[in-house]
């Protein structure tokens, strides 16, 4: 299962810290398989993350990796990409990380359409701190800070990014991890800001409080509620997987390079 991608891991850092039944490990493997398929130069790949369970991923990976501050992965990644556009920059964030404390950076990275491949691992909860409600916790669901059910409505994170100017958005789950690999490849190939929402399961902090008896129940929930474009929604919890949107727009670092060339010609 793992040997095919072991070369991309700092195997001396394993085992990882994630709880039994957590989906982040599966999602990590799916992302790394995308990099393997793309045959990217390991020395040119950068992994940037924020703070939280998902953001521990880069520490296990044998790339240039940076575990930044909570919510700030995207502006760190923006600095890296703007400084050296030839690098392949992947950004790993959690749902609280990317849509609460880092929400402003998400919409501005989308607006700039800077060529980053961003992955939001959405487990509907703040896992690292023990199960508090996040902006992606569904309405009525329970967290330690919504013990009577979440009164707020969640963001649709891909719609948010699309409206802000991102040029690629897609969704898969830990269950649909082969699809996730394909979507990460497509996201990488999009020359602009790409966002992939990877729905994950947090059995310990979310599942226990929300009537999921086992991690397997949560994976089955992902299987049963996911539908593809063109299929009919059967239940209010249903969500679309696959590519959600794709468009073309000028990419930030390429536009900046054009500016440099233009100024060079003017000064000549």
């Amino acid at each position, binding site marked *: 299962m793992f040997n095919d991608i072991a070369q991309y891991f*700092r195997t001396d*850092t394993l085992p990882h810290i994630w709880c039994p039944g957590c989906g982040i490990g599966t999602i990590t493997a799916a992302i790394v398989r995308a990099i393997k398929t793309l045959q990217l130069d*390991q*020395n*040119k790949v*950068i992994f*940037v993350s924020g703070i939280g369970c998902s953001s521990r991923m*880069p*520490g296990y990976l*044998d*790339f*240039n*990796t*940076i*575990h*930044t*501050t909570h919510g*700030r992965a*995207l*502006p*760190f*990644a*923006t*600095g*890296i990409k*703007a*400084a*050296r556009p*030839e*690098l392949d920059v992947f950004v790993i964030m959690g749902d609280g990380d990317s849509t609460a404390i880092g929400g*402003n*950076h998400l919409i*501005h990275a989308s607006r700039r359409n800077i060529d980053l491949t961003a992955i939001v691992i959405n487990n509907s909860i703040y896992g690292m701190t023990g199960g508090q409600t996040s902006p992606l916790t569904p309405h009525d669901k329970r967290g330690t800070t919504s013990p009577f059910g979440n009164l707020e409505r969640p963001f649709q994170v891909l719609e948010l990014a699309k409206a802000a100017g991102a040029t690629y958005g897609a969704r898969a789950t830990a269950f649909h991890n082969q699809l996730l690999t394909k979507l990460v490849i497509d996201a990488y190939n999009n020359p602009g800001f790409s966002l992939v929402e990877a729905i994950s399961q947090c059995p310990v902090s979310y599942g226990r409080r929300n009537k999921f008896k086992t991690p397997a129940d949560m994976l089955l929930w992902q299987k049963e509620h996911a539908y593809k474009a063109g299929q009919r929604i059967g239940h209010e919890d249903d969500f679309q997987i696959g590519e959600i949107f794709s468009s073309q727009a000028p990419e930030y670092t390429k536009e*900046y390079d054009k*500016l*440099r060339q233009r*100024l*060079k010609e003017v*000064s000549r």
Partner: protein
Amino acid sequence: MSNPKLMQGNEAVAEGALAAGVLFYAGYPITPSTEIAEKMAERLPLVGGSFIQMEDEIGSMAAIIGASLTGLKALTATSGPGFSLMQENLGYAVATEVPCVVVNVQRGGPSTGLPTSPAQADVMQARWGTHGDHPIIAITPSTVQECYVLTVIAFNLAEEYRIPVILLMDEVIGHLREKVVLPDQLTIVNRKKPDVPPGEYLPYENDDSMIPAMANFGDGYRYHVTGLTHNQKGLSSGNPEVTKSFMQRLTQKLNPYLDRIQMVEEVQLEDADLILIAYGCSARSAMEALHIARGRGLKVGLFRPITIWPFPQKQLEKYVGRKFLVVEMNTGQLAGEIERIFGNKAVERLNRIDGELITPKEVLDKIGGVCNV
């Protein structure tokens, strides 16, 4: 020497940054620092660099750290409110030892305060604004010429010691226009690169120099950077031995180099009974008052800490037994440090916090009061 030029302080910072080899600027507009961003926006694309206006100062600080990790010298500039927003990521740069320079053109505060008026009230924020025990370097220009030269030196210190350096300006110095003579030759320091193959590279090596070599992201040295307490490989660890070793090196790493970091200006101190201590714009008024006082036969000198953090205590301790008058546009942030060294009785204060400059006459009046006692 080149021809003299008339230049504004903020403009001189931008010119100094370019002379130091800066190729990346990220920032957010804020008075009274904005001219630095404007100048960099105009100049950086011409020299193959990058300017980016970020969505806030948190993002600005993050972006310059990211750029610096790829090997570029990176700058941001702000004022009090923005400096507050930068503090978390400033601490990240300290902990991960990523060189960069942060300019804070101080204005009246707290909060939005007096955006277009001077103050020197971020002295302690520069030292302790971010959480946790940590080293920091902050330097304070008091002329436009120094804005240029000290920006170059700020980058040299950042690169040499792998630390963020704060150029602690004030509104007067930032907006002042005066003559500068750009030096023909500048010493430019670049960070130490690893001289071992990637397999042997320890990004946070604890050797005698206490300053590890730094590889660029993308150059074949694949390593991990984290704000968590980390081992010599850069990997996070909560082990008490690892933590102790990391924290000791981090908090003491400037100690062997203090003589090279701590810059001071000493004026007529040999026979001075009263030593004025002032920096930034206040040092200009103190200097003027000193000349008038000397004309009247009063034995007054000036000690100007150009490097304000780490405070040049050793240089000042030579003058134990004298009287000190600390002149600053805050309620006595540096005076507290001087009292820590010499005790309360040796130290007088002259403070102003109404957004108006401390005038030479005010300093002179205070000198008269102190000397007559």
